[in-house]
């Protein structure tokens, strides 16, 4: 694997390879000594133009458990407001000998620009770009769904026939986009539920069904219900009237939680707004996979870094 920029272009085989390697990584994390020597001597740069402690420490833990050297490069705010261009930042990292760059950026497409610019030879992992994609989040979500469903028998399986419902701000969510493509590639049936203002104006090319009514979606007994974080600032741009109204119509409260099928799981990428898109009952229930997702995130990111840095490089985007 040369880069991991999105899930839109990730093949089923490449995705399963990552998930299966992540199973191996997860197994190693059950041992007393969690550290592997695999990436000794490799340098992984966490290049974060946006604050994201959770994602950064997850990648940091993943790289360190594979014995890579980790450099955290926090460029708060946009490259422009900081006064240094993406090109100069990239060339600096190249000069320092980065083998992989894990990039979080507020601008959609910035990791692709980095990967295709010729400024840098390192592999690029998209750790969330604007409102575009967040591929490792989708991979860890798929891993979590698979694990809950198939347990120790997960390896080699896809998500054929499973129903996954994603609820919240689809328009601005990179998590939603990456999940839509990946879950579809893995055979799941995806439904999105949102206020009409928070669905992209034209989703005719998306392999999803759009619903505006969360109760209807809950009644359909999805295998997984994925709640997205809602940003309260959206209220000011007239996407919804008040957070109370949003919570009433699109929040997972105790009543809706009780209405879910017995084996439905509740997911959230974090950080959660308790009481807004998800109630404390739901967040803390046995259906909740929130902490599994965090733990699985490290395994999945270990797999991605391993395939990027220890595998044969190729340019077709598939895992080698």
């Amino acid at each position, binding site marked *: 694997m040369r880069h991991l920029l999105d899930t839109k272009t990730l093949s089923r085989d490449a995705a399963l390879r990552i998930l299966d390697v992540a199973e191996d990584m997860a197994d190693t994390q059950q041992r007393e000594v969690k550290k592997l020597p695999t990436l000794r001597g490799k340098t992984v740069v966490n290049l974060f133009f946006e604050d994201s402690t959770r994602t950064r420490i997850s990648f940091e833990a993943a790289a360190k458990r594979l014995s890579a050297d980790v450099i955290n490069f926090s460029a708060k705010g946009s490259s422009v407001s900081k006064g240094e261009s993406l090109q100069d930042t990239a060339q600096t990292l190249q000069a320092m000998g980065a083998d992989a760059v894990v990039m979080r950026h507020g601008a959609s*497409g910035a990791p692709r620009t980095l990967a295709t610019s010729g400024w840098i030879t390192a592999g690029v992992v998209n750790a969330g770009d604007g*409102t575009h994609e967040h591929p490792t989040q989708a991979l860890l979500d798929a891993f979590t769904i698979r694990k809950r469903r198939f347990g120790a028998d997960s390896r080699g399986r896809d998500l054929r026939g499973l129903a996954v419902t994603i609820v919240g701000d689809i328009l601005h969510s990179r998590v939603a986009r990456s999940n839509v493509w990946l879950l579809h590639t893995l055979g799941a049936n995806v439904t999105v539920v949102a206020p009409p203002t928070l669905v992209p104006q034209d989703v005719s090319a998306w392999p999803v069904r759009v619903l505006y009514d969360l109760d209807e979606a809950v009644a359909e007994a999805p295998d997984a219900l994925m709640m997205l974080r809602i940003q309260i600032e959206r209220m000011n741009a007239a996407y919804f009237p008040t957070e109370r109204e949003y919570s009433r119509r699109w929040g997972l409260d105790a009543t809706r939680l009780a209405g879910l099928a017995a084996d439905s799981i509740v997911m959230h990428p974090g950080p959660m707004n308790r009481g807004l898109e998800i109630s404390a009952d739901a967040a803390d229930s046995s259906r909740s996979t929130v902490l599994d997702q965090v733990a699985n995130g490290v395994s999945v990111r270990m797999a991605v870094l391993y395939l990027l840095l220890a595998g044969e490089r190729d340019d077709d985007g598939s895992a080698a």
Partner: protein
Amino acid sequence: MTALGHAAESGSSATETLLFRGASLEGTGALDLLVEDGMIVETGVGLSRAGATVVDVEGLVMLPGLVDLHTHLREPGYEASETVLTGSRAAAAGGYAAVFAMPNTSPVADTAGVVEQELALGEAAGFVTVQPIGAVTVGQKGERLAELGAMADSRARVRVFSDDGFCVWDPLIMRRALEYVKAFDGVIAQHAQDPRLTEGAQMNEGVVSAELGLAGWPAVAEESIIARDVLLAEHVGSRLHVCHLSTAGSVEIIRWAKRRGVNVTAEVTPHHLLLTDELARGYDARFKVNPPLRREEDVLAVREGLADGTIDIVATDHAPHPPEAKACEWQAAANGMVGLESALRVVQLAMVDTGLITWPDVARIMSREPARIGRLEGFGTPLTAGHAASVTFYDPSPVRTFSTHDLRGRSTNSPYLGRELPGEVRWTLHRGVPTVVDGALLDEPGVRA
């Protein structure tokens, strides 16, 4: 002394008599053309003249020198992107004899002083006639009318006013501007973009923006302003020009308005005739432009509108930017593309080679009508004796890969680099003075090696 005469005199061969033999008038019948003292003095078949330099242009398409109603020359203020001289050279290389310079310079061309400076810079450059456009509002802020009358009365004789880059959004200011310029036969050239509907907009809103996660620029943000403006123009009986129309819906509105008799004209850019929003998929900011590249359906609709006369002209919206403004993340990149050097070739590809229009139509949409809309005298005139000799000789036959060698301005932000385009500008005459000779741009107007 007019500006035009001054430019002609600056060329050392202004007095050279040129006899062009065998060109094809607007792509139709063969004709010889005798040029002397900046004028066409004779046309016919089998002409001869003692002492004249004879130029064989057999088979080339002869067009009235092209006129661009929408050029950004960047000077004063943004000379790293373009200057009046470099932009004039790019224009001549593309077959242009005159360009209208948009006022979004620094300072903004919103006073008689700045438009006269722009005019003087164009005269000094001498490659094309540079006709300044004045800002509609002070600083293009959309709040107070600029001194439109002073610009009209200045040596620059401004007739076209635009806040291009920004929409004259306030309906009252737009109404007053439309009314006011009637006093001197002016026209308001509107950049139609509802600012509230396009906050943070990065590309056309649709299937592609939904996937790329780029904030959408909806077609309705253009169409709603055009609809409002044609109604305002009708109400006050004024002349409106719509800049860089880009959507199928906009074509429909203009068609409707023209049927009602509204005094409206419209332009389309070469890139909106050829390119679609699919090109945004690689996040290559060379394809970032405002208004954005639209869908295939829109491209087909603007072609049809141009062919049936709903859209009056092609204008380049030549918008130079330095490399650092494009070699960056899409969201941080500047809007705009250079277009002067490629416009005629793109029009051939999108409109002529597709059979939608013929060469006389090209003369109309790229020379005669832009000159008429901008009230620019001495351009877009017939290629007959007694008219100024601004002429473009064009060979439509070669097909070559467009490269930076084709670019003659200061910036290289062309969306066509690496793309095959037909055609070659062989000669450009600006009021009798050669600026392009045998396909090569001269270092100085009229000075041949």
